């Protein structure tokens, strides 16, 4: 134990000695600035009248020139604290955080994705998760890998969206696949209600002719 402590103490001492001149230098620079300020404000000094150009030059000379360097700033730290009475087992698995938990990814979606998509909504991960205030849309599509659009925004492929939980409202649902006719339907979602939609995409006759 003692043999370990000695090299550690020596290491700390070395770090301290190396760090000291840097601190001392920074203190010096700040103190010299203070001194210069004091000089300019020293009462009793009589100076002759200066021309405006000289005044500007003198003022510029007083501004300390900063060396270009990388500055590291610590931004606002957001910490969310919540309370959950226990883990919640919904129909789609286990959610470790309660409704007031910390979701560090939320601001990323809101700040980065929304401006890129403009007026279209963005359906990020968890957009279709179960919620007691939502209604369910059960989608069956043929082909299963058809692309699903809700209100014009891409939501995912049909095989991954067999069950979508959406807020109450009216939505334009579009299911489309390559070389197939698109399926469009206006869907109305109410909380606690389940809506079953079967989208069978017919073959696109116009493309077949070509």
């Amino acid at each position, binding site marked *: 134990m003692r043999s370990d402590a000695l090299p550690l103490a020596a290491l700390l001492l070395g770090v301290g000695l190396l760090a000291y001149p840097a601190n001392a230098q920074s203190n010096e620079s700040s103190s010299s600035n203070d001194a210069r300020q004091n000089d300019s404000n020293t009462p009793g000094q009589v100076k002759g009248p200066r021309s405006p150009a000289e005044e500007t030059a003198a003022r510029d000379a007083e501004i300390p020139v900063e060396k270009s360097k990388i500055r590291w700033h610590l931004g606002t730290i957001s910490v969310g604290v919540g309370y959950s009475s226990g883990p919640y087992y919904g129909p789609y698995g286990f959610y470790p955080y309660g409704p007031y938990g910390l979701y560090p990814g939320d601001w990323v979606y809101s700040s980065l994705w929304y401006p890129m998509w403009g007026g279209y909504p963005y359906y990020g991960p968890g957009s279709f998760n179960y919620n*007691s*205030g939502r209604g369910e849309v059960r989608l069956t599509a043929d082909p299963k890998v058809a*692309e699903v*659009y809700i*209100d*014009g925004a891409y939501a995912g492929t049909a095989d991954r969206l067999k069950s979508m939980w959406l*807020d*109450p*409202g*009216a939505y*334009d649902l*579009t299911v*489309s696949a390559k070389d197939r006719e*698109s399926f*469009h*339907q*206006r*869907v*109305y*979602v*109410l*909380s*606690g*209600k389940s*809506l079953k939609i079967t989208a069978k995409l017919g073959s696109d006759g116009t493309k077949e002719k070509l």
Partner: protein
Amino acid sequence: MSRRTWWTAVVVGCAALAVAGPKGTVPRATVERYRIHTVRDGIGVGVVLLSQEQVRKTFVSDVDRCCVVAEIALYPAKDKALEVSLNDFALRTGGTETATKAASAKLVAMSLQRKAGSGRDITVSPTVGVGYESAGYDPITGGRTGGGMTRSAGVMVGVGGSGPKAGSTDKDRAAMEIELDEKGLPEGSASAPVSGYVYFPGVSRKKGAALQIECVMNGNKVVLNLPQ
């Protein structure tokens, strides 16, 4: 953005506009295609009374709880626009003097929201438990106790709920209003055939009771007898 993505965006956008644009339902080719129809002064009126089962299939909202729903199609006279207003429609139960006027989507949605919010939910959950208890020491006597199988059974009864009831929130009301409005008979000036659903609230459908739909078309009253 690739060419394919552009095309997809254009198609989806057009589809969204096409779906959101027109209101009501698609009228049949001619008024004669409706089993119950009449033509007066060149104006044709066709009616289909929806059964409760049909209403349940057609609407996500529980309209069958409060209303009698009829699909009404209007065919204006040639080169003459027709003013369509819900105030011109009424439903009369045979043998009574009272008639019910057609209600707006907003009114029906409010009524449905209130109905969904009323009432009480009672949940009954039976519970059955089977377990095994290992041997231990009795804390009072200090003696060794025997283990064995344990069985339990019970019933949990829950009244009410912490969350909002299905279909009772303001968002639900707004969604119901949109649905009823978009599927409803479009109001205003019509120079081409129009059709849509008309809602008559508070009408009880008694078996054997005859129903009549009265509508006023350009000042003329038209009565259509509906099948029992």
